[in-house]
């Protein structure tokens, strides 16, 4: 069974700085999808960025980018120019092509200091 590990329960960053959140996963599959979700205090789950495993190029969405290392089974999220509104819980998630179920990591709580 696939698993997703987020080893950093909490992270902090100063406004305008860059922070990287770690995610590793375990799978025997070669084709799958990876996601980062943001959960602010409102509790809403917001899709931040997604990556297709067969694409070499790292996904980017504005200030958010990923470092996808397929061989290492690593999928880290980089937030550049951090803003106060980035403070949230961030979840890494895995989705196999063979199933529609999302498997989540335990989350990383990000604090942003002015």
């Amino acid at each position, binding site marked *: 069974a696939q698993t997703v590990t*987020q080893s950093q329960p909490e992270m902090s960053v100063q406004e305008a700085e860059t922070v990287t959140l770690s995610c590793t996963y375990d799978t025997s599959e070669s084709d799958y999808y990876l996601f980062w979700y943001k959960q602010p205090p409102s*509790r*809403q789950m917001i899709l931040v960025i997604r990556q297709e495993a067969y694409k070499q190029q790292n996904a980017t969405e504005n200030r958010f980018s990923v470092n996808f290392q397929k061989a290492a089974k690593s999928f880290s999220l980089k937030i550049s120019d951090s803003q106060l509104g980035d403070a949230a819980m961030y979840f890494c998630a895995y989705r196999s092509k063979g199933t*529609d179920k*999302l*498997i*989540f*990591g*335990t989350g990383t709580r990000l604090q942003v200091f002015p």
Partner: protein
Amino acid sequence: DAGITQSPRHKVTETGTPVTLRCHQTENHRYMYWYRQDPGHGLRLIHYSYGVKDTDKGEVSDGYSVSRSKTEDFLLTLESATSSQTSVYFCAISEAHREFMSGYTFGSGTRLTVV
């Protein structure tokens, strides 16, 4: 623009009572899911549905049942609530063509407290 709504948003119930949480979608998505969120565990899948009257168990299904009699509604029932079921419950929907890369759209969650 809420294509998916959950009700209630908050609920406090007593141990041993039945509880039903409702998820309603207006997107006509085939696939629907119930997750629970607990500190240190992330989100864990309780049950899911691939269509009307087509449901299956997830990894933490004990003590829960679901029903889907219409495409738009997916109900989660706690037959006899226990304190271990105190959690935040999320419903999600997916466009879900198996070859289509999509994440889920989530509801806003239900915070359930069992006392």
